[in-house]
């Protein structure tokens, strides 16, 4: 039942209204609204009950193993939530002067320092509000860099960004937003970038390349140094998409691989909650030459006082990308998480995420599942391809995914990266225990048996969730995007 269907005209929840409010008298009628907006008229209990019950219709980390590849669905420590929601943090207005802000600013400053250390970059700006905005900032900096070449005359020929075919959709989409052309570079059969193709692709038109390493194929790009050389020699810059940083946290620093600019997804590697879709945070880090272009605001420390750096201080900055300082509350959570882990804990993240992935990979392989890259080590994730099942049993990756839900497991990422057919990108993360991994593997084996003996059962899944399989085609064709009163 929708909340609107519980609404009754004239029901008011006085405990949540300011008392004794007079109607405004000084705004002329021409500016005023004269219909009642369609907000629910329910009691506090009805709202609480409705949204409490809705919440239970979700899978989540707090309730289920959620091995969604490339998304790093790991435990979000509850302490990060409660400490970031202390009243002093929640009530600080973004325009508070520095003398009312030292607590918050000190956390931001410390976080910048931590992220510099972890990434091996020279300077960090925290402001981008998600990975994709971090990418935007990064590519905008690449553009700003090229525009500043030749004594400020710029390098207008550099119109292309290279992107491996395994890249996340945000990479080409970002390049487009920054008005670059996108050229795809193929992947070889071992999951590495095809170096010959890269060599052919680079040239004076190359502004840069966007790479994830480990790539979204679940393998580490071994020729990264060579790639860096090729691109740098051609005058391009290297962008590191940090979505998979969890795999190498504290073990390998992107700065050491030759990257010029990097974004991090704090909602992945630094375990801020995914919140049913967001918010995230996508800080960017840069090498020396890109420092002037970093987005503002940033935080600096001047003789024991924390201060904010703005456009005034950094005139070459690509500027601000949010009204204030980005997703400050998310940054606080990441800072708290980083402090809880500490330097040793960070390295362990990479180690145990990798251990879990390789363990699952080996066990699934032993159970007869086909790996996309059987000759490679897994990083923090790996790919199983179900193309044999699709062909021979007519049970595809989507069917497996839906059936897994019945077994109490969230499905891995399906059909991404696009180049692997019937693909399952599986990322267990370091916070899952061996039992959970084993449970998932057993479910996969059980579904495989079902697929062999009763394919229809798998194709009809799920059966035990609040709804059965949904009709996406109808959703897109007969658009129903808002509830209408008369439907009641």
């Amino acid at each position, binding site marked *: 039942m929708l909340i609107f269907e519980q609404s009754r005209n004239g029901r008011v929840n006085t405990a949540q209204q*300011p008392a004794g*409010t*007079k109607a405004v008298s000084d705004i002329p009628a021409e500016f005023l*609204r004269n219909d009642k907006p*369609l907000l629910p008229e329910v009691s506090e209990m009805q709202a609480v009950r409705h*949204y409490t019950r*809705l919440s239970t*219709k979700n*899978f*989540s980390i*707090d309730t289920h193993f959620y091995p969604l590849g490339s998304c790093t669905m790991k435990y979000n420590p509850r302490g990060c939530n409660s400490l970031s929601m202390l009243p002093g*943090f*929640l009530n600080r*207005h*973004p325009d*508070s*002067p520095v*003398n*009312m802000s030292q607590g*918050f600013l000190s*956390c931001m400053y410390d976080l910048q320092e931590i992220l*510099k250390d972890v990434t091996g970059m020279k300077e960090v700006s925290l402001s981008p*509000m998600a*990975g994709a*905005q971090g990418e935007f900032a990064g590519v*905008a900096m690449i*553009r700003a860099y090229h525009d500043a070449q030749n004594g400020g005359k710029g390098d207008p020929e550099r119109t292309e960004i290279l992107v491996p075919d395994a890249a*996340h959709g945000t990479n080409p989409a970002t*390049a487009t937003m920054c008005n670059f052309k996108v050229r795809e570079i193929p992947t070889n059969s071992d999951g590495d970038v095809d170096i010959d193709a890269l060599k052919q692709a680079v040239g004076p038109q190359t502004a840069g390349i966007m790479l994830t390493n480990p790539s979204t194929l679940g393998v580490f790009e071994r020729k*990264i140094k060579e790639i860096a050389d090729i691109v740098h020699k051609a005058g391009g810059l290297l962008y590191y998409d940090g979505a998979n940083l969890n795999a190498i946290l504290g*073990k*390998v620093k992107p700065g050491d691989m030759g990257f010029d600019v990097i974004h991090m997804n704090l909602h992945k590697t630094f*375990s801020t909650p995914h*919140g*049913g879709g967001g*918010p995230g945070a996508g800080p960017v880090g840069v090498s020396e030459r890109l420092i002037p272009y970093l987005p503002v605001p940033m935080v600096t420390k001047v003789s024991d006082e924390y201060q904010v750096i703005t456009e005034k201080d950094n005139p070459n900055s*690509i500027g601000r*990308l*949010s*009204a204030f*300082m980005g*997703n400050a509350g998310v940054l606080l959570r990441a800072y708290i998480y980083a402090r*809880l882990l500490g330097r040793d*804990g960070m390295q*362990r993240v990479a180690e*145990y995420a*990798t*251990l879990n992935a390789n*363990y699952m990979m*080996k066990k699934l392989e032993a159970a007869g599942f086909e790996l996309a890259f059987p000759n490679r080590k*897994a990083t923090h994730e790996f790919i199983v391809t179900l193309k044999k099942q699709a062909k021979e049993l007519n049970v595809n990756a989507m069917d497996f995914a839906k059936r897994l*839900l019945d077994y109490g497991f*969230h499905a891995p990422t399906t059909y991404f990266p696009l180049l692997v057919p019937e693909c399952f990108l599986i990322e267990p993360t370091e916070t899952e*225990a061996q039992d959970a991994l084993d449970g998932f593997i057993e479910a996969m084996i059980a579904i495989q048996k079902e697929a062999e003996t009763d394919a229809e059962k798998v194709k009809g899944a799920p059966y035990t969730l609040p709804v059965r399989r949904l009709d996406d085609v109808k*959703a*897109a064709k007969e658009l*129903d*995007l*808002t*509830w209408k009163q008369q439907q009641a």
Partner: protein
Amino acid sequence: MPFIPHTEEDVKSMLDTIGVDSIEDLFDEISDELRAEGLTKVPEGVSEMELSRIMHERAQQDSRTLCFAGAGAYEHHIPAAVWEITTRGEFYSAYTPYQAEASQGTLQLLYEYQTMMASLTGMDISNASLYDGASALAEAVLMAVRANRKSKSKRIFMPRTVHPAYRKVAHNIVKGQGITLEELDFDMDGGFIDPESLPKDPGDFTALVIPQPNYFGVLEDIDALTNWAHEHKALVIAVVNPTSLALLKAPGSWGDKGADITCGEGQPLGAPLSSGGPYFGFMACRQAYVRQMPGRIIGRTVDLDGKQGFALTLQAREQHIRRSKATSNICTNQGLLVTAATIYMSLVGPDGLSKVANACHNNTVDLIDKLEATGKAKRLFNRPLFHESVMQFELPTDQLMDAMSAKRILPGVDISEDYPELGNVMLVCATETKTDADLQMYADLVIDITKNS
């Protein structure tokens, strides 16, 4: 080990299964030269208990303030239920609802949210959020360029009464695509875009941005502005405060045809001030432009048994399908804030939101009166306003700010850097959270401080 469940035995048995000797062996594809030396600036890990003490001390440093600042971030009462439910693990720790069947909670909530926002803005449809108000405006500009196929100029009229940070962000985001934001200046008496001042022959332009209330709290002549834009075949992008919409005319009813795209900052709907984020940007538009909309959209559909259910829809607009041709690069959005906003709107209801809007406005008007009564401050603009006002003080604003902040009072936002022509001014706001005593204290302090300076 914090957050890692493995015992030594587990590790041993897992390594055996993999067939390697040590965890280090799993990294052997990475060349030695790339291996980090270790982390030096990351502090040693601490327990939750120790960190709790540290964070309490830091939070304490910024706390116990009385806030009269608005300027795009408003201190409203947030019912306790909002965040108690929003932070339930099932909302808090879920991801984007890619597996619709396992995400009906989030999906239904978003569908309800879309309905509320569409109605509040008077638009046909709403998306499921963008990052914040400023970046939502940038996306709205990009969307207008896609949607107004007849216009080729990529010129957008952008009043200087739009939040300065929004203008900057919009510029920073759209400039790469050859879009120009042309400023419209405001009337110095009214603090609004005087329709009379609009170019009679503007040439081809793509869209006009109209803020309501504008950055100064002043109400724009929305009907005239909207009609002017439409007469010139340009689209209208409304930038609005959602609380105000319980009281003020919805963009869908502006002028003869209504605005085409509405966007804004969702923070007033249940998000704490929180140093500026996370908030959320909202965006709503006419049905005709739905395929140009950036961000997630949820649709209602049916399952195999014909039962109602909800799913992400029109994904072909999005980066994970359309890649370099997507309507936007946005992926992760601000879902949890939308969760809070939806619960907030359900708890206050239409009547409550209207009371909040009225109370904020009345408090601000009272504050203006009290400040003017001191003789040390006066209201700058003579036009109707909503819940925020530019005040001119006798004292230099930086002196006022220093003296007030030393008493843990934030007297407003100093906007003289962005608008040097206005002189010694402060943008002041008193929401429904302020009592008469608070307002009086502010006024009394202004007298004191002015005297003692």
